[in-house]
C-alpha cells in the first residue's frame, strides 16, 4: 500500500474505506477489507481473476503501487510574517449571552487604543509589501463585541484601506458581531467589509432570546433579525453562527428551518455550546442527541438548497492545522500583545502563557517569544500521537487547541468530547461525497499541498 488508508465500520458488516490523501473512498464488505489488509501485510495471493481485478482497481485509485503519500506537513519557521491581523477591539459587550466563552461584560473592560490597531495594520501591510502579497486582511473579533469600539474599528479600517491602496494592494475587512447594530453601523459594514461578517443568531426567536440577552436581560432577536434583513436586502454576504445548548438541541432543526425560510446567509455554522467562560459549569451539548439533531437539521437545510457546517468536520480539506493557532495567527489584544487564538484574548487568562507569543517592539515591529511560538507551531496534527490512527486527522487536524487545553491542561492531547461528533459528521460527509460522485466511489485528483516551511518562503 502506498497510501494511508483507513476503514470505518458501517452497519451490516460494511466498511467505509477511506484514503484521504488520495481523495478516495468507497464502501466495501469485509472480504475486500481483508484483501486490502493482506496486500498491506504483503501476504496477498493475487492469482485469481478477481484478485487481479482488485489489485488493478487499487492501483487505479492510487492506493497500491504508486508514489507514496504526500502528507500535509507545513510547519512555519522563522519570524512571523503575517499579512492578516485580527484586532480584538474590546471586552465590552452590549449583550450578556449565557454561554459566552469570554464572559463578555463581566470581565474588566478593555478597549484597544487606535494606535495599537494602526501599528498592527502597518505591520501586516509592510509584510504584504515585502512578500508581494496582493492583499492584507483586517478582522475584527471578540473578547467582546467589536462594534462596541466603533471609532477604532472604523478609523483603523479607513487607515488600512488608504495605506494599502497607496501601496497598490487590497485591504479586506471582516468581522464577527452579535448583530445588535445601529443603522449607521450596518451601512458602514455593508460599504466597507468586503470579507463579510458572521452574525451570532440562534434561530427561533424564543431560543435566541433565552440565551442571547441584553445587559438589562431583554431578548435581542428582534434587533438581530432586523440587522440580518438589512444585510439580505443589500445583497451583502454574511454567515450565521448558531450555538446549541443541551436544552436547545431538540429545536435545532426548527431553528435551521426558520433561518432558511427567513434569511439568506451564505453560510450557517452550528456548534454545540462549549463549557467555557459563563458556560463552564453547564452540561455538555456534545451528545448523541446533538448528532441526531444536526443530521436532521442538515436534511432540513438540504430541502432549502442549503447546508450547515460544523467546524471540525470538513472532509477533503487535507490540512495539518485546525486553525491559525499553529500558523502564526496574528491577533492583537486590546493592550497590543500578540495572541494566536481569539479565545485567549486576555493576558490575565488562564491559558495566556500558551497563546500569547509576542508584544509590540520598538518602531513598527513586534517582539516574538520563540519558545511559545514553537510550541504553537508544533500543535500541527502530525505532532499529536493521539490522532495518528484517526481517519479524520487530515480534516480535523487535531481540533481546537484552546478547547482541548481548557478541559485538560496536562499538555498531551488525548482527544475530547468533540472527537466523536467530528468523526461521525466527517463519515457522513465522506458518504455524501461518494453519493455526489455517482454513488459507487469518490475519487478526485489529489489537492496540491502547501509548500514551504518558512514564513514568506
Amino acid at each position, binding site marked *: 500500500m502506498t497510501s494511508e488508508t483507513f476503514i470505518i465500520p458501517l452497519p451490516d458488516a460494511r466498511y467505509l474505506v477511506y484514503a484521504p490523501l488520495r481523495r478516495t473512498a468507497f464502501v466495501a464488505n469485509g472480504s475486500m477489507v481483508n484483501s486490502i489488509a493482506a496486500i498491506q501485510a504483503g501476504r496477498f495471493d493475487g492469482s485469481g481473476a478477481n484478485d487481479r481485478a482488485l489489485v488493478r482497481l487499487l492501483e487505479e485509485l492510487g492506493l497500491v503501487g504508486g508514489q507514496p503519500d504526500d502528507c500535509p506537513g507545513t510547519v512555519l519557521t522563522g519570524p512571523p510574517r503575517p499579512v492578516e491581523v485580527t484586532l480584538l477591539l474590546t471586552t465590552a459587550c452590549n449583550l450578556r449571552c449565557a454561554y459566552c466563552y469570554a464572559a463578555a461584560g463581566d470581565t474588566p473592560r478593555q478597549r484597544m487604543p487606535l494606535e495599537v490597531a494602526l501599528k498592527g495594520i502597518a505591520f501586516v501591510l509592510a509584510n504584504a509589501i515585502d512578500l508581494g502579497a496582493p492583499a492584507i486582511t483586517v478582522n475584527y473579533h471578540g473578547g467582546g463585541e467589536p462594534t462596541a469600539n466603533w471609532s477604532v474599528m472604523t478609523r483603523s479600517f479607513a487607515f488600512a484601506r488608504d495605506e494599502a491602496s497607496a501601496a497598490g494592494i487590497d485591504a479586506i475587512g471582516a468581522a464577527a458581531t452579535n448583530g445588535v447594530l445601529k443603522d449607521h453601523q450596518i451601512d458602514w459594514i455593508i460599504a466597507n467589509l468586503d470579507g463579510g461578517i458572521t452574525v451570532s443568531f440562534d434561530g427561533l426567536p424564543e431560543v435566541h432570546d433565552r440565551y442571547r440577552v441584553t445587559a438589562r436581560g431583554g431578548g435581542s432577536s428582534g434587533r438581530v433579525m432586523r440587522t440580518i434583513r438589512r444585510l439580505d436586502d443589500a445583497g451583502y454576504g454574511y454567515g450565521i453562527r448558531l450555538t446549541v445548548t443541551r436544552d436547545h438541541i431538540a429545536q435545532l432543526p426548527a431553528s435551521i428551518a426558520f433561518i432558511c425560510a427567513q434569511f439568506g446567509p451564505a453560510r450557517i455554522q452550528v456548534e454545540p455550546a462549549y463549557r467555557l467562560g459563563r458556560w463552564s459549569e453547564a452540561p455538555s451539548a456534545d451528545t448523541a442527541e446533538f448528532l441526531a439533531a444536526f443530521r436532521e437539521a442538515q436534511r432540513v437545510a438540504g430541502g432549502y438548497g442549503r447546508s450547515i457546517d460544523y467546524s471540525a468536520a470538513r472532509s477533503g480539506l487535507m490540512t495539518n492545522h485546525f486553525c491559525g493557532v499553529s500558523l502564526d495567527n496574528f491577533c492583537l489584544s486590546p493592550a497590543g500583545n500578540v495572541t494566536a487564538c481569539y*479565545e485567549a484574548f486576555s493576558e490575565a487568562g488562564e491559558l495566556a502563557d500558551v497563546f500569547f507569543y509576542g508584544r509590540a517592539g520598538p518602531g513598527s515591529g513586534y517582539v516574538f517569544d520563540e519558545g511559545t511560538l514553537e510550541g504553537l507551531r508544533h500543535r500541527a496534527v502530525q505532532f499529536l500521537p493521539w490522532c495518528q490512527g484517526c481517519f479524520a486527522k487530515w480534516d480535523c487536524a487535531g481540533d481546537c487547541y484552546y478547547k482541548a487545553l481548557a478541559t485538560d491542561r496536562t499538555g498531551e492531547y488525548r482527544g475530547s468530547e468533540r472527537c466523536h461528533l467530528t468523526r461521525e459528521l466527517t463519515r457522513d460527509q465522506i458518504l455524501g461525497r461518494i453519493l455526489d460522485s455517482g454513488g459507487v466511489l469518490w475519487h478526485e485528483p489529489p489537492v496540491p499541498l502547501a509548500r514551504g516551511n518558512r514564513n514568506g518562503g
Partner: protein
Amino acid sequence: MDSVESAPARAPRYEIRQVFSDGTETDPEIFSVLDPPWEAETDRRGFLRVGLAASAVLALLGACGPSEATRVIASATAELTPSPTAKPKPTPKPTPRPTARPTANASPTRTTRPTPRPTPRRTPKPTARPTTRPTPHPTPRPTAHRTCVCNMVGTCTCNTVCTCNKICTCIPVCQAHRLLDPDPTVRTMAEEIVLVMGAVEMEYLRWAAAAAQPGLRARIESMADGIGDGADPDPVRWPSIGACAARLDDGDPVVAFMAAQMLELHRTWRGAALGRALRARVRTRIAEGQAMRWRAPASAPGRRESAQPRGRPPSGSTSG
C-alpha cells in the same frame, strides 16, 4: 443524556486491518450509496445498495473498453434508483426568498478558519468586484479528464466515458455572449465559465466572437487573449450558491444553464454541499442544456456534433 464520548481512554485506531469474518467465503465487493446518511432512516440502515465486484468498478473508472464501461455503468446506475418500496422521507416545504445575494465565503469566526487562505489570484479584466473571500480549500479541476463531452452515463452518445467521476461542466453553449450582460452576476458567471473551459474551447470562443456585435466581440477576444496568456478561473469571484440557484429558472435558458454549471463548479471544485433538491435541479438544467445541443463548431475531429444551436434556441440566438 450522556456525552457521547467522555474522557476517552484509548486513541482512535482506524487503520486498515483484518476484520471479523464468520468464515463465509464471499468475493470482495464495493457497495453503492443510495442516500445521504443524514437522510437515511434513523437506524442508519438502508442507505447502501448493490454490491459491485472490483472488475465492475474498474469499468466505472474507464479502465476497460468503452462499450463494456457503458454497459456496466448503465447497470450500476439503474441499481442506484431507490427502491419503490422505500419509505418516503418527509420533505420540508422550502420557501426560500427569491433574492440573489452575493456572498462572503468564509466566516471570520475563529473556528471556521481552519487553514491559511490561499493568496487570491487575479484574473484579467474583472468586471465585478469580488464579494467573496478566497475559498479555504479550492479543489483542483480534473484537467486530466477534459476530453469528456458527455455527462449522462447510460445516455452517452459520444461513446466515451467520463473518468472524472462527476458531471462535467465544460460544455460551451453561449456563455461568451453573456460577457456584457447588464446583470453583474450573469456577467461573472459567463467570465468564470469561459475561463473554466479555457484553451480547450478556444474554437468555440472564436466562433462566439465572430458571431457577436463589435463591442461584445472585443470583450470575447480579450477573454480569449487572457486565456492564451494563462488566465485561470478565480473561485473568489464566483457568484454565491444562492445567487446561482436564484437563476436556475431564469427565462434565458443560457443563464439557467450557466447557473447550473456554476453550481456544479461550486460542488466539484470547492466541495460545496448542495442540497439534494438543488442537485436535482442542477442535473435537470444540465440535461436540458445538453439536449438542446447548443455547442459551437470545433475543429477537433469528432469532438462536437453540432455547429449551430438546435432545438429551442437561446434568446437572441445569433448573439447568444
